[in-house]
Each structure stands twice: as structure tokens, then as C-alpha cells.
């Protein structure tokens, strides 16, 4: 198996790496690039701990081959905070105690950001279905859902302040779990 050379963009930075054709994007991130914020909980796309964005679409990085991300844009948990300033979702997860062991947290944050970028006014049901591809075994999801809803509320408030100039577009999230899973597996 000869290695493949790949040029891609991760969290806004151009990145080059070499990987074997059988390595997943998650393997590349963790083992070749030292970006261990994305976690492997299953390796089969069922737990969402390895969630990243690929060209703005939420995917399980364990289901994407490393060799196929050339020319694409990848966003991982490592790119979520800007310098020392946490993303509002990160801050709310802390305030709401929306994590216990913390292993699923990066995946939840990446998935929740992807939701709020599409829909800054989700219902509780929409949040629950959007996050149904991310497993958490500690929290029972209660505080996670509250943190996401609370972040959305704050984001709408700050959007309203600056909305005089540019109104925020509101897109509806796909409400069905099957649609969501399908989107992930399509990667």
C-alpha cells in the first residue's frame, strides 16, 4: 500500500500530510497531525465523538478517508475557540455543566455549532434530533440541550443588536434523524 500525499485546509490553515489509503480522516487528525481533540468512540459512525465539518457539512471523521479530503475545508474542535476566547457554545457548556467525563464534548460542540449556523432558533425537538448522532453516556442529555438552547438565545440577542444592518438568515434544521444520519453517512 503506497502512501498518498494530500493537501487540505484545516481550521483555516493549509495543511499537507501523507497517509495510507486505509487511514480515516480521524486517524490522520489524531495520529499524523496530533489533533487529538476529535475522539474515536466507535470507528463506525455511530457515536459522533469524531464529528468535524467538511466543507460546512457535519460528518463523522471516522467515516471519511484521509486520502479523499484533498482540496476540501475541514473544521475541528481545535478551531472552535478564537485565540483565548471561547466560542459561546463552549462557554455555555461550562456554565450549564453540560459535560461530565468530557469525551463526547468535542463532538457535541462541533455538531451543535453546525446546527446553530443553520438555525439560530431551534426548538428543543430540533436540537434533540440534530444531536441524535452524538452519544453521551454521562449526562442524560438534559444539560447539553439546555446549553445549546441558551447559546442560541444569546446568539439571537446579539444578532438582533447588529441586525439593523444585516439580518441573520434562518434556515430550518432537518428534523428527522434519518435525514441527519444519511447526511453523515453520505460522506
Amino acid at each position, binding site marked *: 500500500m503506497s502512501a498518498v500525499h494530500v493537501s487540505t485546509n484545516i481550521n483555516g490553515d493549509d495543511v499537507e500530510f501523507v497517509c495510507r489509503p486505509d487511514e480515516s480522516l480521524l486517524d490522520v487528525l489524531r495520529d499524523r497531525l496530533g489533533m487529538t481533540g476529535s475522539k474515536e468512540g466507535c470507528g463506525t459512525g455511530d457515536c459522533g465523538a469524531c464529528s468535524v465539518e467538511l466543507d460546512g457539512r457535519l460528518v463523522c471523521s471516522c467515516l471519511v478517508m484521509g486520502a479523499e479530503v484533498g482540496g476540501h475545508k475541514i473544521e475541528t474542535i481545535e478551531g472552535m475557540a478564537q485565540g483565548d476566547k471561547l466560542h459561546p457554545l463552549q462557554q455555555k457548556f*461550562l456554565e450549564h*455543566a453540560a459535560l461530565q467525563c468530557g469525551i463526547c464534548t468535542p463532538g457535541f460542540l462541533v455538531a451543535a455549532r453546525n446546527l446553530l449556523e443553520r438555525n439560530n432558533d431551534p426548538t428543543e425537538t430540533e436540537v434533540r434530533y440534530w444531536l441524535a448522532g452524538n452519544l453521551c453516556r454521562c449526562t442524560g442529555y438534559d444539560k447539553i440541550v*439546555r446549553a445549546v438552547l441558551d447559546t442560541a438565545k444569546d446568539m439571537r440577542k446579539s444578532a438582533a443588536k447588529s441586525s439593523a444592518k444585516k439580518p441573520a438568515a434562518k434556515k430550518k434544521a432537518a428534523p428527522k434523524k434519518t435525514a441527519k444520519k444519511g447526511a453523515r453517512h453520505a460522506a
Partner: protein
Amino acid sequence: MPLDANTPDLRTEFKSVGTRPNRPDGVDKVTGRARFGADFALPGQLTGLILRSPHAHAKIKSIDTSAAEALPGVKAVITYKDIPEQEGCDKDVLVNIMARGTALYDGHAVAAVAAVDASVARKALKLIKVDYKVLKHVTDVDEAMKPDAPVLHPGRFDPVDFSTLENAAHVSGKEERKTATPAHSNIAGRYVFGHGDPDKGFKQADVIVEHEFKTEATHQGYIEPHACTASVSSDGMAELWVCTQGPFMVRDVCASLLGMDVSRLRVTPSEIGGGFGGKTTVFIEPVALALSRKAGKPVKVVMSRSEVFRATGPTSSASMWVKIGAKKDGTFVAADAVLKYQGGAFPGSPVEMGAMCAFACYDLKNVRIVGYDVVTNRPKQAAYRAPGAPMSAFAVEGVIGEIADKLGMDAIDIRLKNAAKEGTVSSYGPTFGPVGLVETLEAAKAHKNYKVKLGKNQGRGVASGFWFNFAGNTCVSINLNVDGTLALALGTVDIGGSRASMCLMAAEELGISYEDVRAVIADTSSLGYNDISEGSRVTFSSGLATIKAVRDLKVRMCGRAAKIWGIPEDAVKWENGAAHPAGSNAGNFPPLSIKEIAAQASATGGPLAGHYEINAEGAGPSFATHVCDVEVDPDTGAMKVLRYLVVQDAGKAIHPSYVEGQFQGGAVQGIGWVLNEEYFYGKDGTLQNAGFLDYRVPVCSDVPMIDTVIVEVPNPGHPYGVRGVGETSIVPPLACVANAVSSAIGVRARTLPMSPPRVLAALEGVAASKA
């Protein structure tokens, strides 16, 4: 000055305790910086993989590793021969980490390789030739108890003659055994608890309900698979980085299995991605050390999810019979139970604890519980959150629900009528001190959820639960830094935010700010022995030791202030973060703050620290009452949990958000157990659903918000009244949801999980019986 370790000065007013600050490890965990088991890497490390038995039960006739060893890039191949039996080691653990002659379950480790990368290691595994002779297997607990069942450990367990024992009919599946008992059996243990005379008691009963129940094995389902990196050098010094609930346990067990001095092995716990009891033993750790020892290089071993399901410890499956008799007014007069738990291929199922917890919520004059520990061809069970208790509570609370229905009594009232309280002789023996079951029942009854009107196909269930709570060996050190901030070293792994709780207790005791204390989880060379983070013991035990270590430090700081002032040490008291002259010297000197004492520490005798080492006792038990509303679709059998309420006694909630989190997490794990989760074995005894797609844990859209009420009946065994909270929350949900289903559609679920096909079949049964 109440600094004496033996003074039970129960504090009731708090500044820091009871607040909800952000946790100290929080930013690392929301940014991806926190290092979990698989995130650790050493230069030059090899990848270790384990070959596992594809058979449920097989004689291993030979293992040929020569082709794997010859593959370029392979640095070590090991079998059981590389881990020779050491005197005094735990033989069952030894056999479980690597099969010795017989593979006892699907997934049992048979050999392991270390290679330059995963790709080579995978190839090497395929080159290992194992010659198996497949044996008959058994995975069901009732089947395993039959006289003609395949015996897992010939010669080890004597047969049991049931015909002479209590409730024989419920042990051997309704058939009295007449045939000659076989030479050996799979029954590893028999346990009896109780008091009074149940047979007499039942004669006073106006109503008696008895049924048989079955629950399937479920897995803890922590999202982080087991992972470790081992490095053994040629002089026998070893280091291990590992995700575990018990680094000291890992050190001692690995040293014992591998014939090492304990001092040669240093274990550093990583952040842990969930445990729930499943990380309280060793699986891959001794294998990684043995591979590293042979290869002379660091070796990292990370389990796949499939390996986690097949080869780590789920909890037991159970087969149970419960009988309860009551008077017309709802008073229980007698209770009787037979519990049969299979614990996988080795003895040690949690049936004793299941038996002790079964009736612990109730004041019973006549009670008997018989438990059987049974071995089967399944992975060795491991602790899972209140081990053994959820199953027996499922059966007992289900029967109580039916008695309440028969008597037309409210589900909470019947429990209030019989609830255990201070002075009750528990069903497992001891007399209870102050406990909070009555308070949880009253709070549940007063909660708004209990008053919501239900619609068609909707029902409400109630169940209570109990867990002992543990204490145990605990060591804590606290160091005063030069600027007056503090470094707190703990030996109990932080699974769900315990560092925040320890910082709160240290800050409370010192009268300083929470932000001024930083807690770290120490490695095994930095503190004395700490028991595993298990049994809901951490906030109680490490909290107790933290408070006592701080008191030790306060005595020393007061001593320094006394020296500076030139007054006797006992004329100094600690208040609000500063030493104050007391008694006749009161007001003679301005107080010395912790910062001032820290700044002068070097000049007044050297660095200041406090520490405390104890085998803690006095963890108070915790009771809970849950209330749940469900709606069942009569066409599909699918069920939706509409509302869920957890009311539990926490003694004192140090960080209420994380107490609520324990309540909510336990409830949802319990909901998964009742609705979906099960180990599913094929006819060949292999696990059919070793992945999260087919072993379905609850997802976000399966559950509603989980309402919580924290009851606080202080535990006199802790200076702040703390009781452990982690485990009791998973005890009631199985029965709570089942009782709700019964109230919704009139079907009593006695087999878990209550998957839609099972509910549908039961509905059709009811319809047929009415027709």
C-alpha cells in the same frame, strides 16, 4: 477549635459549597485539549493488537505464532506462555486477560502482537494460527444451572442439591430436580439474606403477588474505549498511562500478574471518558506491559468498540422470582425472592449486592432472599453503577406496583407506608441510621409532575431504589503555594466533575476563594494508596480527606502565626482565610491572611502543607424515588418517555449541577436498560450486536428533560453531611418505566428490554385473553 479529625462537627452553613462554579478541567474539555487514554503517545511507540477467540467455548489445542513473528515490522507476539502464573496473583483475572488452554467466551483474548503500525499489527493477527476444538456452550443463566449444562470449570464448583433448599421450584425453573446431580456445576456461589419467617408472614397476607422476571445483560457503554500506553525498560522499571477508575488498583494487579515489585510500576491515570464501574479492573493493561517488556519499546493498546462489547465486563443478566404479601391497608407482611445472576465466565456476579439491595427500601419483619452466582460463556462481568441492584429492584418494585393496583392504593402511599427509616432493621441485616427515603417519597408526591393529567395510552410509574455507598482508602495532600494559592493532590480519578467538588470543599474549609485552589489527579508514585473511584465513594471519601488535609494545614498555619506573634499555638484560630489571635490575645495582633503566611513560610520554618490518609468509613446510604410518564403506541409497541423525575437524597450537594448530572445520567442509563439495551447472543454463542448501531444506547431524541429534586438529609459520617450520589440513580428506572407502561396499557413487563416487539406481543396477548 474544631480541627480535631475525630470531632463530628457537622457544618450547616456554607459559602462555597452549594454554589455552581465552572469546573477546573472544563476549558481543556471543551477545547479538545484534555488528554484521554488514547490521546497519549510516546516516541517510538508500537501498536499493540489482541487476537480474540471467535468461539464461545473452545479448547485451544495449539497456537502457532511463527508466521506472525516473521512478518517485517512485528516486534513482539505473546500468548499466555509470556505471562506465567505468579504465586498469589488472582487466577481468574490472569485467565481473563489471556486464555490458558480454553477460550471461555466469544472475544476471549488468545494472543497479542506489537508492531510498528496498526496495518502491520492487523496483518500479524491474521498470521497467528490457533487450532480450536469447539466445545458446547451456555450463555443463559437458567440453562447454565441445569444438570446437563456444559460445565465451564470442571472440578471447581460442587453441584447444589436444590431439592433440599428453600424455593427450589424457583431455582430450577419450576421442575424439582429428581435426577442425580452431576459431578460439577456452574453455580459458583449461593447467598442467603433476611430475617423473620416469610412462610408464617404470608399467612397473614390479604393479597400476595409473585412473578418471575428476566433482565438481559447491558454494557456500561462509556464512550471512551479502554486505552493504555506501556513502557517497560530493560532494568524492569515500567510506566503505564491508562484510562481507569483505579490507577492504584491497576498498578497492584499488573505488578502481581507480571511478577514485578509494585515500586517498579508507576501508573498515571489519563482523563477518563466514562467508566460506570467498567474500568474497575484490568483487561489490556497487563497485556500492553507484557508486549512492551518483550519488545523493549513502548506499546500502545486501544480497544475497538467491538472489543469493548465482546471482551470487557457488561453487567449480569438475571432471572428472578419475587413474592410479596400485604395486608389490606398496604402493610407488607412478608417478602421472598430467588435471584439468579450470571456473571460471565468467572465467579463474582453482583448477586450478593442485588440480594442485599432488593428489599432494602422497606421495613419488613419477614424477609428472605436467596441469590445464585452462575458462570456462563460470556465475558467476565464488571461492576456497573450500583452493581446488581437495578435488576432486583426491577422485580421487587414491579411486584409492589401490582400490589398497589390490587389494593387500589396510590403508588407513593404504599411505599410511604412501608418505607425504611432511621431504626429500621434492613433486609440485609444492619439497622439504618438517618436515611432519606421518606423525604424522597414526599418530595416526589409534592412535585408538579405527579399531578399532570394523563391522556390515552399514557401511564405513570413510580419506583424507589437504594445503594449502600462506599468509602475506603483515600489519601490527599494539599500544598500552600508561595502566593497563598493551593495545590490539591487527589488519588481518586475524576469521572464526573469531582475536582470541582474538592476545590469547593477546600475553599470552604479555608475560607478562601474557589479559584485559589487547583486540584490535580496524582500518579501512583505521588500519593499513598487510594481505592478505585467506585461505589459512589469519591465526593464522600476524597472530600472527607480533603477537609481533614486542609484542617491539618490550618493547624500548621496557625502554628506559624503563633510563632510570628509569640503566643501559644492554641491561642490562634482560623477564620475567613486568616489566622486570628484568640482568647486573651484576641485583638492584640492584626490577623495574618493565608497570603501573608504563605509569603513568610520560607522564613518561618519552610513550606507548608497538609495531608490526610485514611481508610474512610461512614458513607451514608442514599435512597431515591423516581416518577415517570410514558405513552405507548398500541399499533407498534413503541414507547415514548414523556416526563421523568428523579428525587434523591444527596446528604449535602457540594456542586448541585454535578449532583443533578449524576441523577439525570443514571436515569437515562436506566431508561436505556428498560427500553433497548441488551446483549444478544446467537445460537453459536457469539455476540450478535457488538456495536453502537445494534446495541442501542439512548440518544438525545429518545428522552425528555430529566427533572430533579435534591433532598438533603445530612450524613453524620461526613463533616459536611455528604452522601455519594452516583449509583442510586440507576436503581429505580427499570421498574419505574415498566410500572408506567403497565398503567398505560395494562401490560406488565417482566422481561427486559421492553422492546417494541415484546410490548406488541404482550398487547396482543391481552387482547386475545379479553376476546
